[in-house]
């Protein structure tokens, strides 16, 4: 407060203080009431969540198969290419999204239209070594876009993650509206980045149901090294061990497919060859062995792509290049066809 300020500021009687405090509360109430509308109107990095939910629930879309996974799948699998290899060239949707982990994929399963007879689940191997729940922000995005888990999904969440889902499922609507304020700040980030990153095609990433690639430029060697270090940070030199929750989660997903009369296909996503120097030497072989054993036990098709792509077909430490995506998609298409799809 300025010590030199000599202005006479009139004292506020209690009624005026209450009016000012009431005005602040009014602003908060207006913000809460507008939260669902604002959330749907502003651009955020999770806008694709809305696209996926709308696609699945509209009734207009009747895909035969769907592919779930994280941004490696967004960048690496073109379902139009996959369909070329499949009998009758069925329509398949790539329903992957940035950072989509196993639980997030599983949450979408309840929304699948009856037309879907095959669920292709791509699993990033390092996710097997983490007891990951969907984060609060992502679940909030799904909630704000109208998603409500049905009783079966809720039960699945508690069976897989024990008490952890309470943090998501135990929240009231007003609480979810409160949480949705994260979108306001991200709107700024998303809007500015859309203008600055000319190498990225974010509209496609948000709206494309076949190949939602954002196509970034390839990294310089120095940046790539940092990216590889970052990408392997959580598993660095640790021997492969499957955590209980991801194992239970994949089992629940396979069980869901079986229960609903659908085919379940498991794919291990490709890893950058140079990331191996930061991994335990047996990590890839052990992860692959686990996938194979799981597939054998559940009598499902497993496609191994862990070491499929060479280093020059990645744009960074994680994501395939356009050419890499085409080669990977053709490989997966062939394998799916051989598997009888």
């Amino acid at each position, binding site marked *: 407060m300025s010590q030199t300020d000599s202005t006479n500021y009139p004292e506020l009687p209690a009624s005026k203080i209450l009016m000012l405090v009431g005005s602040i509360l009014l602003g908060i109430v207006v913000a809460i009431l507008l939260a669902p509308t604002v959330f749907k109107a502003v651009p955020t990095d999770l806008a694709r969540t809305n696209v996926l939910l709308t696609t699945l629930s509209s009734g207009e879309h009747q895909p035969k198969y769907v592919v779930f996974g994280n941004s490696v799948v967004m960048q690496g699998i073109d379902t139009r290419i996959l369909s070329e290899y499949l009998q009758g060239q069925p329509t398949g949707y790539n329903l992957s999204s940035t950072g989509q982990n196993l639980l997030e994929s599983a949450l979408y399963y309840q929304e699948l239209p009856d037309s879907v007879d095959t669920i292709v689940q791509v699993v990033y191997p390092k996710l097997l070594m983490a007891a990951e729940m969907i984060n*609060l922000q992502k679940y909030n995005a799904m909630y704000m876009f109208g998603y409500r888990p049905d009783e079966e999904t809720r039960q699945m969440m508690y069976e897989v993650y024990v008490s952890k889902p309470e943090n998501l499922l135990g929240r009231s609507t007003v609480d979810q509206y409160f949480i949705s304020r994260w979108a306001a700040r991200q709107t700024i*980030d998303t809007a500015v980045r859309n203008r600055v990153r000319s190498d990225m095609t974010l509209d496609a990433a948000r709206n494309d149901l076949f190949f939602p690639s954002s196509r970034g430029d390839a990294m310089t060697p120095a940046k790539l090294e940092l990216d590889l270090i970052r990408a392997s940070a959580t598993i660095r030199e640790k021997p492969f061990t499957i955590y209980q929750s991801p194992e239970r989660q994949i089992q629940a997903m396979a069980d869901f497919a079986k229960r609903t009369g659908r085919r379940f296909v498991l794919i291990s996503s490709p890893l950058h060859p140079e990331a191996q120097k930061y991994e335990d030497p047996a990590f890839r072989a052990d992860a692959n062995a686990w996938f194979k054993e799981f597939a054998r036990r559940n009598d499902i098709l497993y496609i191994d792509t862990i070491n499929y792509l060479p280093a020059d077909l990645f744009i960074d430490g994680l994501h395939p290049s356009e050419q890499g995506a085409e080669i990977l998609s053709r490989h997966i298409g062939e394998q799916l066809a051989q598997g009888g799809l």
Partner: protein
Amino acid sequence: MLFYTPEFLVFSLVLLAILGVVHKSEPRKLVLLVASYIFYMWWNPAFILLIVFSTVVDYFVGGKLAAEENLTKRRLLLLASMVSNLGLLFFFKYAGLFTDSLLGIMQMLGYEPSWVSLNITLPVGISFYTFQTMSYTIDIYRKEIPATKKPLDFALFVAFFPQLVAGPIVRAATFLPQLDKDVRLSCDQRTFFLIMRGLAKKVLIADNLAVFIDPVFSAPGDWPSIIIWLATIAFAIQIYCDFSGYSDIAIGIARILGFTLPLNFNHPYSARNPSDFWRRWHISLSSWLRDYLYISLGGNRDGAIATYRNLMLTMLLGGLWHGASWNFVVWGFLHGAILVGHRLYTSYRRKLNPDWRPGNSVIGYAISLFLMQYFVLITWITFRITDFADMNTAVWKFVLFDFNFDIAGLGLGGMSFFSTLVLMGLFTIFTVFSQRRGHVENYLGTLSLPKASAVCVAAGFTFFYLWPLKQAPFIYFQF
């Protein structure tokens, strides 16, 4: 209890309701003292005993000092106060640091001592209230103030809740006389908006900037110089908004309760030289260090070399005051070095021309401002990063700029990079505006009620949308 939590809102409403019906002076002080103790005990009830201990010791030492004329006895009384206050501070704040450091040195020399490192919980605000009680005793020793004969007044001076845990550090000479007047509740519109401004600085700016700063400084080797620069500037804004935001709220709440607390910040990032900076940054601490440490060491009375030594010692200890970590000593050392360097430069210029004064040309102003703030930014790196290897990496990346502007694909999207830039821009606009036109609450304080209400609706709306999901405690609570 934090100022922006629902429990503090309830606490304040209950307190105001009680003070609204308790009109007599002494009972009102008692209510405020009990409220202050409850405020403190909300965090950890046991540590209230330390405040009570400090209060009792300094009240009695102060009383004895005022009555004692024998210099030796006066010195012994002062020593008793210093030992008890600094003893508490040392034990709770620094014992762990020194035992850990000794352990490290012994291990380096090949010894394996049998003791293990101490893990002592730091009582919130101990650095603030011990300095406050010490100033009381020293002022009486120097015969600058009389000892109070009212234990209730003294206890309230030590524990007054708005500034108890993070300042401003209040002097007895300015606070105790306020208790002699009738304490009454009052709130003007400017005070209302001052509190809002403090809350906005803390919640909307400081806490939102942390999202970008924390990942950069946790691994500075991963980022190019431009990101280190931006994170450092962001941290300079964060710590200012966090700390001055707290001070704004504390000053505002104290005003409502009828007390005036001293100014703690005055546009520190417009300082042109180190002395200027310390007249603007954490003013209550820097003036405390000047009056009770620098002057006690001899100040500038014993020649140039002694002055430089005293300056350096004051800043080293001032650095250590901030936390039990050697990086704060480095921070203090750098500020000491630049203060000494500035004095050397000034005396050199005055030797050449006794009438020399710093120039007021636009270019001169810009150069001195840039140099000072460049240095301040470097010191913030040493303040923020405790790991010496990381600190070294960040400082070198800051100083030896790598001209790598290729920041696409670094993963900045997940760190709210662009909105951080927007927040930094808004802070700069508000700062420039308030420097030219006066603080925003001065303007808002004069608005008509409908206009002020409209501002409040907009503020409520903004608070809702920009209140971060993760709330961080005030940075200075750890000091």
